[in-house]
């Protein structure tokens, strides 16, 4: 080992006696050397991933900072413009299995920053009580479950979600209904016309008027599915959500209801759900709203230093 080299001590320390941590620089110690830095945004339509080439041919050390999920704009999570060191994992755990994490990794070609699938989505659930589910089977009206399709004749269903976090006339990018199929009867597609209940804050289905006579949106979606029990199907409800949130009396935190009218489903083919075994914080069926295609901002530093050389 040679006894030559360069040392520079911090102000106030004698370079001949300074400890390693009192040195600003010592040729004995490797330092982190920046290869490249940059910033960008990750979008939903862009696959929720940023791929940044580094052209090093080996895995470099790196550092990533990102903004967090706008759903968590609270004192605890800071402002939307705050940057967090990666990985960021808010709300990953729990019975809902909602995954809002941002992760990053590097291989020999690229640095990757990935936003997990639930990031940015505002979820709303039923209260897991019978009054948030309604059913009408050729006339008789009941609450406690929801079936639709054809079951000994026409079957219509309704479901209600609370605490929709969208202000009056607030713009949004996507809105989905995620319908859990607890029961499937028969074989083939269930066909339905899906409407929103066109009210400011629709009541539980055992209060006020019956669900199926409440005013419905002029916008609707013709939809069908052949999925079976135990699956969750997705329905685009953006047009109807936009119509409801443009109502004069709409406000963030209100409830929305959804009507599924049979649309000539084959005999004895139906799907349904009830609040049995329901978690009140995340019912099996939900609706979700993505307010912007732009999900988050990132900044990164790629070093020349190699991981595991």
């Amino acid at each position, binding site marked *: 080992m040679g006894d030559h080299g360069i040392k520079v001590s911090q*102000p106030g320390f004698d370079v001949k006696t300074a400890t390693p*941590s009192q040195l600003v620089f010592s040729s004995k*110690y490797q330092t982190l050397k920046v290869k490249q830095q940059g910033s960008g945004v990750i979008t939903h339509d862009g696959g929720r991933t940023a791929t940044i080439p580094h052209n090093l041919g080996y895995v470099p050390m790196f550092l990533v900072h990102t903004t967090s999920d706008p759903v968590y704009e609270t004192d605890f999570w800071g402002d939307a413009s705050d940057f967090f060191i990666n*990985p960021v994992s808010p709300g990953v755990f729990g019975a809902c299995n909602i995954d809002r994490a941002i992760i990053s990794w590097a291989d020999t070609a690229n640095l990757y920053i990935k936003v997990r699938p639930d990031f940015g989505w505002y979820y709303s659930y039923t209260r897991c009580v019978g009054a948030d589910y309604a059913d009408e089977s050729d006339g008789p009206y009941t609450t406690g479950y929801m079936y639709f399709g054809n079951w000994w004749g026409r079957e219509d269903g309704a479901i209600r979600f609370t605490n929709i976090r969208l202000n009056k006339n607030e713009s949004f990018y996507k809105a989905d209904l995620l319908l859990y199929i607890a029961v499937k009867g028969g074989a083939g597609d269930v066909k339905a016309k899906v409407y929103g209940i066109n009210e400011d804050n629709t009541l539980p289905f055992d209060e006020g008027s019956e669900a199926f006579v409440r005013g419905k949106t002029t916008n609707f979606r013709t939809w069908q599915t052949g999925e079976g029990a135990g699956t969750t199907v997705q329905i685009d409800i953006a047009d109807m959500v936009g119509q409801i949130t443009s109502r004069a009396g709409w406000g963030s935190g209100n409830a929305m209801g959804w009507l599924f009218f049979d649309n000539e489903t084959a005999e004895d083919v139906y799907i349904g759900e009830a609040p049995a075994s329901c978690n009140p914080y995340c019912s099996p069926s939900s609706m979700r709203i993505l307010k912007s295609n732009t999900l988050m901002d990132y900044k990164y530093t790629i070093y020349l230093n190699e991981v595991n050389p």
Partner: protein
Amino acid sequence: MPPVDYGIKVTKDGYDVATAGILDQSFNSQKNCLKIAAPDGEGSVSSTASGYRTIEIEHGLDVTPAFFAWFQVDNSGKWYPAYTQEDYSGKNGVVNPRSDGTKLYLQIGSNVSAAIEVYFVIFVDPGD
């Protein structure tokens, strides 16, 4: 401490050392650089098991050092910064590093048996 009027500055290409701001300097003897401990400040350790286990690495420094750590699972070639979980269940692995005045601790966890390799970097500089 009175300001010093001596020292070393090195600027990035294209900047005048007499006028360049700190962000345009590659080196300034008034500003500390994170220095990787030598000769054992970098290295990799591996563990193949399920559940949580902790690997302890003595650093021999007189400070509680700053550190970095990245890890890969089953030799995937994808290196994640600690503390990442590949999915919400954590089934593929997670690494939670910490340090004190004597050691770097790498707590490794996985819900399944997986080969987790951790690459760590310990600095001679304190983490505060």
